[in-house]
């Protein structure tokens, strides 16, 4: 039932409605996330970052496609693999690096770290280190918007691993009953940590939301255009009071589950990784399409890459120089 309510990507007019600049901007966002995450990996490998991080490399088109369909005042909730969502929603590279390094200038004054970045000014209600843990918060933000008579929507990002969590189903049921403006974005990167999702997930992914009458669609998460159109459609439905929707985005993390997951042969083959990296890289895809459409040249895209790299370098520099929080902060913000 649901498939029909979310139109398929229109190869014709739909593309034309989106200005070339918007696609080019999406390219910049994809590149920014990629470069940011590469830098994070580097920080880990050179032991400059406390703790760990779950990199979003390979999955960038999901966050960018979805967040480009949102307004600044729309909400998102994110996951342990959350840097991409955060950047796509407009966060500053400086403050993100500062947070990853535990500095006072970070989004959470260094108290959250990689898995808890929240950016209230841009509607990012926070990454969440409990798998599926933010499903209630996203639906609650949607309920709040509905009660306040605001036309904001909320996006709940989660990995397919969260399909094992009961909370998700409790909340989808209520979202459907109450027509909440919430969009479930399932980032199916095939693995729950080190276990293929087929070993943990009975039935199909979309049958789950459909059981609640929530329209659902499986899309190519490596194609930012497909993600953007599907998301824009879900957002439009939600904003106009037609209730929740569910997108299963097929994607892949090019790196390990987290930065230290380096030897992965026991759960996935190098060949599989190479296939995704060489044939299904979201950045290459968008780049070749932009050039093909003559909306960008190889040079202009290189220029964007260089500009982004400068932003990353400057942001990192800022964060490395920034002071740690004062010891007195340990007791601050336990209570409001």
């Amino acid at each position, binding site marked *: 039932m649901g498939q029909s309510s979310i139109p398929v990507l229109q190869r014709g007019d739909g593309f034309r409605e989106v200005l070339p600049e918007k696609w080019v901007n999406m390219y910049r966002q994809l590149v920014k996330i990629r470069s940011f995450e590469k830098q994070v990996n580097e920080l880990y490998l050179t032991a400059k970052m406390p703790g760990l991080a779950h990199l979003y490399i390979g999955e960038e088109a999901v966050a960018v496609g979805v967040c480009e369909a949102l307004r600044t005042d729309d909400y998102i909730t994110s996951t342990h693999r959350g840097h991409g969502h955060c950047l796509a929603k407009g966060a500053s590279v400086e403050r993100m690096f500062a947070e990853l390094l535990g500095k006072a200038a970070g989004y959470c004054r260094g108290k959250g770290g990689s898995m808890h970045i929240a950016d209230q000014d841009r509607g990012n209600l926070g990454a969440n280190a409990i798998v599926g*843990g933010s499903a*209630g918060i996203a639906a609650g933000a949607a309920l709040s918007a509905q*009660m*306040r008579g605001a036309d904001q929507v909320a996006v709940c990002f989660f990995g397919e691993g969260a399909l094992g969590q009961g909370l998700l189903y409790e909340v989808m049921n*209520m979202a459907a009953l109450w027509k909440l403006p919430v969009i479930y974005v399932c980032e199916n990167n095939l693995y729950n940590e080190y276990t293929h999702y087929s070993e943990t997930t009975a039935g199909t992914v979309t049958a789950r939301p459909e059981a609640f009458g929530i329209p659902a669609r499986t899309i190519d998460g490596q194609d930012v255009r497909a993600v953007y159109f599907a998301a824009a459609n879900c957002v439009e439905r939600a904003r106009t009071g037609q209730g929740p929707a569910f997108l299963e985005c097929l994607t892949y993390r090019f790196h390990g589950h987290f930065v230290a997951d380096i030897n992965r042969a026991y759960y996935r083959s190098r060949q599989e990784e190479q296939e995704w990296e060489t044939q299904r890289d979201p950045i290459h895809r968008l780049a070749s399409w932009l050039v093909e459409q003559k909306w960008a040249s190889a040079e202009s895209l290189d220029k964007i890459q260089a500009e982004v790299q400068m932003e990353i370098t400057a942001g990192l520099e800022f964060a490395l120089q920034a002071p740690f929080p004062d010891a007195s902060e340990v007791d*601050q*913000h*336990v209570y*409001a």
Partner: protein
Amino acid sequence: MSTPEPAARELTLAEAIREALAEEMRRDPRVFIIGEDVAEAGTPFKVLSGLVAEFGPRRVIDTPISEAGFTGIAVGAAVTGMRPVVDIMFGDFITLTMDQMVNQAAKIHYMSGGSLRVPMVLHTTLGATRRSAAQHSQSLHAWFSHIPGLKVVLPSTPYDAKGLLKSAIRDDNPVAFFEDKMMYKMKGAVPQGDYLVPLGIADIKRSGKDITLVATSSMVQVALSAAELLSPIGIEAEVIDPRTLFPLDKQTLIASAKKTGRAIVVDEGYERYGVTAEIASVIAEGAFYDLDAPVKRMGARDVPVPFSPVLEDLTVPTPESVAEAARTLCETISAS
């Protein structure tokens, strides 16, 4: 001693709670109630009866039986500008809300470096002797009291219930509010209109010079009855109700114990690792050199609450058992 003015009407504790909610909902459109059978049914205890008639089903929201789900939704609504009151029918079911309360609500303000707030109340029950057996009789308020970021309130009179609930609703933090379901019919003077009982201020319910009885929730009545039993044998007990377990008014407890030199802590939670242990240690540390006897703890017996009345009645402190313990403590001769 906070006593209402003599002209105040008598209300039951349930009526006092309902009046607090109604007044707060009239005062602040952001306040709403969410839970199972809260609307027309007004909860199985009829505490919320009539609220839906005034405020409508959009502010008194009946949910599916999904405690984790609607608690999570309340968290999300709270961080985005609403002030939800979550109703959990039986305190035993807070186990199902634990991730949302402990890992989400309690930590969001801190993890976000103070940028997000979670102004919500989780309203629930405690208390045994209703012949409801092991899964409907527990007093699990210690679970929340253990968690930095949460506040915990246990009223013992209708007057306190109204004033404390209003303070809880206006608080910018997640507050767990526990009522003993055996106290809903208890009557007491309650002023009309607005007044607040601040969180973190203990109340001396009876003055005395010989022993301090620190008691919570329905155990306050038990302690007061024990005091009546002790008075004829020449022991004047001081009964103190902390009213909130966090923030905890340590000064008042310590000052009383210093004055009397003896203390018993009575609470209906399980005795081991419980509220009584915490308060006893506060008194032991703060009043050590003035104590004439070790601080005694009286909690619920460390067994799952049995059904059979003859067994169940053995699991909770009674006026007789408290009076007996007090008498024994008062016979302890000071070592000095």
